[in-house]
């Protein structure tokens, strides 16, 4: 199908990367959230989680239960931050997941910079303001985020190191019991953004 061909062109080349070591964060309500790398074969569950939100005309970057962050390892110097989607509200899950994503790029993969864009006021506040990201808009097109459309901001290693102690948390190693519980992904049954949502299995 044409869509498959198109999707192949959009898909970044698969690159060998150091794995992200899982960690656990105790959220404000006492729940333990495991942050771990998703496997390629889990793409279907992740898409099924995001799909119901496509019709929600609201900013859901600060949301509920769990979330998904995506980004791309461009090369040893550069990371390209993509999405930060969370579903459960009021626990700053989005902030924790974004911080974990930056930890992955800078601390684990050793990149020097990460390009970041924000498509919403909440995202802008969380990343551009709180991390004091560098605005490289003036360097366009030499510097540009591949999603385009909005100014490109940059997290450098220096900026990351300055905020790391206030932004990045989590405990390692994660107990085998918790990891086992997080091994099988489940799509949320409820979305606060979609009253009355019912998943068709």
């Amino acid at each position, binding site marked *: 199908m044409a869509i498959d061909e198109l999707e192949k062109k959009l898909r970044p080349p698969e690159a060998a990367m150091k794995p992200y070591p899982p960690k656990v*964060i*105790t*959220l*404000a*309500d*006492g729940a333990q959230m495991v942050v771990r790398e998703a496997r390629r074969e889990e793409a279907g569950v992740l898409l099924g989680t995001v799909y119901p939100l496509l019709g929600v005309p609201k900013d859901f970057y600060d949301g509920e239960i769990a979330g998904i962050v995506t980004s791309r390892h461009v090369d040893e110097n550069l990371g390209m931050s993509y999405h930060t989607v969370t579903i459960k*509200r*009021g*626990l*700053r899950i989005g902030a*924790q997941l974004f*911080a974990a994503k930056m930890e992955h790029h800078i601390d684990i993969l050793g990149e020097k910079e990460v390009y970041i864009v924000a498509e919403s*006021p909440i995202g802008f*506040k969380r990343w551009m*303001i709180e991390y004091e990201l560098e605005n490289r808009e003036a360097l366009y097109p030499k510097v540009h985020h591949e999603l385009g459309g909005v100014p490109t901001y940059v997290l450098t290693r220096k900026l990351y190191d300055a905020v790391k*102690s*206030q*932004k*990045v*948390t*989590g*405990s390692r190693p994660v107990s085998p019991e918790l990891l086992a519980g997080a091994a099988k992904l489940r799509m949320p049954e409820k979305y606060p953004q979609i009253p009355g949502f019912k998943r068709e299995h």
Partner: protein
Amino acid sequence: MRKVAIVGIGHTGFGNLSEFDLVDVMGFAACSALQDAGVLQERRLVEQLLVSNMCGGIINHQTGIASALVSRLGMEPAMAELVENGPASGASAVKLAVMAIASGLADTALVVGGELMRAVTGWIGTDAVATLLHPQAEYDLGLTLPAFGGIFTRMYMERYGLTERELAMVAVKDHENAAKNPWAHVRVPCTLEAIHDGENADVVNNYVAEPLRLYGMCPVSDGAAALLLCALDSPKMKHFQGKPPVLISGIGAATDRHCVHERQDPLRLEAVRLSAERAYAMAGLGPKDICFAELHDAFVILEIAISEEVGFFERGKAREGIVRGETRIDGRIPLNTSGGLKAKGHPVGATGVSQIYELVKQLRGEAEKGRQVKDPRHGLAVNFGGFGNNVVSTICSRINL
């Protein structure tokens, strides 16, 4: 002086209502109060509308809100005015409604408090509220209300030995109450382990205005609340047969120096103490008669400090009461049974009205399971304007004790 009762109450959810219009949000709360009193269809019997709002002109680019609301509700030719007294606007509007009724100018008055603050970013909202500070001596130096909250907390900790753990205990209690309140903005309980004791707590509960952390501050909220008042001796009382009326037995207000640094002791909240004393005197009651209270905890330290000023604890001793669980729902003096500003939310102009809504709810025995105080007779609300420079205290009591 005529006795004034609350005969109807209304409330919207607190949270993000930015997709709605300010007057619509207020109108929803107003209609709920009229419905609660059983007079939605006969709403033109209300002679006076008082609207409390602080930031409509700045944030929502809307003025003349009382005129807009009276028309939206189809309640012309009722008298309608806006009351702006900073974060104490809500209780000030109730006080003016009591004055209007007590004087005989009106028999009935509808008080509607509302604010839409999420239409702008958090820092613009914070800046809008900070305009109540002294322009040259405070605002121009970059002071905001959270900054004052942090400074006040630090001073209090140094003088009385209050710990961050005890501050976190107040937040845990407020969130527990808010989780059971359907109107609350943050209906998520939090645990002491997660926001203080645990190894991730420093990031999960980060500093906002040190030593105040995220879970020590109120959220920025939208929302509205409304109260319908009537003179107990008015023939119009016969229209309100649905719910038992609740008496406004005492109401008092007081002011203090505008600039916090000009006060003899910045930790002494003189306007809180005086306003409460005036309310106690009018009601013929004292702190020991109060069964529960809604205290203006925009920052958790304020629940502690206000609880001492109004006489629930000796100065510097509230922390001991917190540790003993005295301020919990089943404690000696339950505080912020609604979740307080801390977790229920703080749409500034609505807050004072919402606090009294909670008093009525509790006194009627209508609070949700798990947050109803046992057999309460008198409740106190303290609505704190500025950084304590303009405060209104209100006591509500069950009738036919």
